C-alpha cells in the first residue's frame, strides 16, 4: 500500500515538472505576444486601433500573470524567457514587419499564426488537465480566439481587395514564421534544448499528462489552415505552403 502511494507521489511530482514546462512555454509565448502588440502601437492607422493594441498587450500580460498563478498553485518554478531560441526567432520575425511598417503583416504573424498556435495548444491542455490549470488554459484559449476572430475579419477584407497580393505577402510570412513554429512543434527537438524546458525536452513526456507532440502539431496546423481558409486564401496555395514545412 505504501509503495503504491509512493509511486503515485512520484508520478504527481513528475507530472508537476511537465506542467511547469508547459506553463513556461505558455508564459514565454504570452510575453512575446505582449511585446508584439506593444510594438504594433506605432503602426496603428488610428487612435482607436492604437488603444486596441495597447489593450491587447495588456491582455497578453494578464494571461502571463494567470499562468504564473497556476505555477504558484502547483508549487513549480517557471522559466520565463521570450528570448529563448524559438521565441526569439519569432519575435525577430515580427520586428522585421514592424521595421518595414507593415501593419497587415504584423496582424498575420501575431493574430493569425501565433494565435492559431496558442488557441490550439491551450484548448488541448485544457482538455487534458483539470482544476485551476484546465480552467486557466480554457479561459485564455477563449480570449485568444477573439484575437484570431479579429484577424480573420480584418484580413478577409484585405484579401478580398487584392487576393493575389495578399497571398504573396502571406506566403512570405509563412516562410519566415511558420517554419520556426513547425520546428518548435515538431515531435522531436533535433537541435538541442529550446531554453524554456527546465530539464529534458518536455515533448518526450507529454504522453504522461495525456498530450502528444504529433497531435498538438496536427491541431496547430489544422487551425492555422482553417483560419487561412476563412480569410479567403485558396486552399491549394496554403496546402503547398504547409507541404514545404520541415518535418
Amino acid at each position: 500500500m505504501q509503495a503504491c502511494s509512493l509511486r503515485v507521489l512520484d508520478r504527481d511530482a513528475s507530472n508537476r515538472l511537465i506542467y511547469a514546462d508547459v506553463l513556461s512555454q505558455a508564459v514565454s509565448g504570452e510575453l512575446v505576444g505582449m511585446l508584439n502588440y506593444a510594438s504594433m502601437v506605432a503602426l496603428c492607422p488610428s487612435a482607436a486601433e492604437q488603444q486596441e493594441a495597447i489593450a491587447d498587450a495588456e491582455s497578453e500580460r494578464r494571461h502571463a500573470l494567470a499562468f504564473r498563478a497556476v505555477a504558484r498553485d502547483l508549487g513549480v518554478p517557471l522559466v520565463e524567457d521570450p528570448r529563448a531560441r524559438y521565441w526569439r526567432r519569432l519575435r525577430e520575425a515580427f520586428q522585421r514587419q514592424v521595421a518595414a511598417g507593415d501593419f497587415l503583416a504584423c496582424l498575420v504573424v501575431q493574430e493569425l499564426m501565433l494565435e492559431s498556435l496558442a488557441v490550439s495548444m491551450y484548448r488541448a491542455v485544457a482538455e487534458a488537465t483539470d482544476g485551476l490549470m484546465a480552467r486557466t488554459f480554457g479561459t485564455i484559449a477563449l480570449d485568444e480566439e477573439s484575437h484570431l476572430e479579429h484577424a480573420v475579419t480584418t484580413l478577409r477584407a484585405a484579401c478580398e481587395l487584392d487576393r493575389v497580393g495578399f497571398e504573396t505577402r502571406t506566403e512570405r510570412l509563412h516562410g519566415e514564421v511558420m517554419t520556426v513554429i513547425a520546428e518548435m512543434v515538431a515531435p522531436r527537438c533535433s537541435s538541442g534544448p529550446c531554453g524554456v524546458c527546465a530539464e529534458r525536452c518536455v515533448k518526450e513526456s507529454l504522453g504522461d499528462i495525456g498530450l502528444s507532440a504529433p497531435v498538438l502539431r496536427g491541431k496547430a496546423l489544422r487551425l492555422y489552415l482553417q483560419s487561412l481558409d476563412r480569410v479567403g486564401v485558396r486552399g491549394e496555395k496554403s496546402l503547398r505552403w504547409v507541404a514545404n514545412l520541415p518535418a
Partner: protein
Amino acid sequence: MGREPARVNGVEFALLGHQESWPRISSIVHALRDPDRPRLAEEDVRQVASWIPPRTLVRSRVSSIANGRSARGVYIETFVAPDELEARAFHRAIEKVREAVTCAAREGAQIAALGGFTSIVLEGRPELAEAPEGLALTTGNSLTSALIVKGVEAAAGLLGIGLSHASLLVVGSTGDIGSACAGYFATKVRRLLLSARNAERLRRQEDSLRRSGVDATASTDLRPLLRAADVVVCAASLAAPALEIDECRPGALVCDAGYPKNLRPANHRRGAPHVFWGGMGQCTGGWESDSPLLDIFYSFPAARVAHGCLLEGVALALERRFESFSQGRGRITPERIEEIWEIASRHGIVLAPLFGPDGLWPTTPADPADWIPFLA
C-alpha cells in the same frame, strides 16, 4: 463566427474524394513539396496529413463532345485518411465530409459529387451533410452503377461469357450500388447470387427479387457463392481490401468496383479469374487542369479516367442539371441507370478502357470511342 469569404465565380462542379493509401497521400505531399526540400518519411506524412482540413487541390475545365460545351470545377481532397474509413473513426470522417461540402459551397459550386467513402453520408443518413443553399449534392452512385454494369456487359462480351446463361454474384448487394447492380442484372442473368453483411436486409432483398420471379440466392457466407459465380461484381463498402481472388472460380469475370478496392492484391496465375476495376469512366471531350496532381492520384493506365461517382458531377454540370441525381439508398433503378448513361454519353463520358491489377486488358479497343457502338 462571421460571414464566410465571398464565393468564387465560375466554378460549377466540385468533386469530393479521398485517397485509398498512405503512399498515394505521400506522393501528393511530395508533388507539392519543392524538390530541394528533404524527403519526408511516410510516418511524418501520416502525422500531419490527417489533420489537414479539406481543400481544393486542382481546378479543371471539362469539355463536352456536344456543342463545345464546357464546365469548370474543382477537385476537393477531403483528407479522410485510409485508417479513418474504419467504423471507429466514422465521426471524424463525417466531420471532414461536412467541411468539404462547405469548401465546395465556398468555391461557388452548384453541384458536388461525393466520391467513394464520402457518399455514405448521403446514402444512409443525409441529415449528416446538409447542402448549403445553391449547392446540390449527389453520391454519384448512379453513374458508377451504370459504368459497372456496362463494363460487365462489355467484358463478358470480350470473354465470350453469355450473361443470360451465367450466375452473377453481387458482393455488397444491399448497398446503394450493389442493389442497383442486382436490380439491373435481375432479368438479364440466369441466376442472381447476393451477399452482404446485414442478414435481415439481405433476406428482404432476396424475398423481393424472388417475388418478381428472379432466381435469387442470398447468403452472408460469401465463399460458396464465389465458387458458384461466373461473374462477380464487388461493390462492398470496405475500409480495406478483404476478399481473396483465389476464392473465385477459375476463368470467372470479376469486376471490383470498390473505392477502396474489395479484392486483396494477388499474383497473376494461369486460369485465374479475369479482373477489372469497375465503375471507371473516361472523358473523351477533354479535361484540362491547372496542376499535374490529378495525374498523380488518378494514375490509371489510360488518360482522363476517373471514378464514375465523380464523373456524375461532371456529367450533370455539362448537362446543366444541378440536382441531387443520386441520394439515399436503393433508389437507383435500371431506368435511372440508363438515364445517367445517356446524359454522360451525350457529353463524351464513356466507359473507361478495361483495366485491372495487371494494367489494361489486352483486348480493350485502343480508342475509347470504339466502346460507344459496342455498348449501344
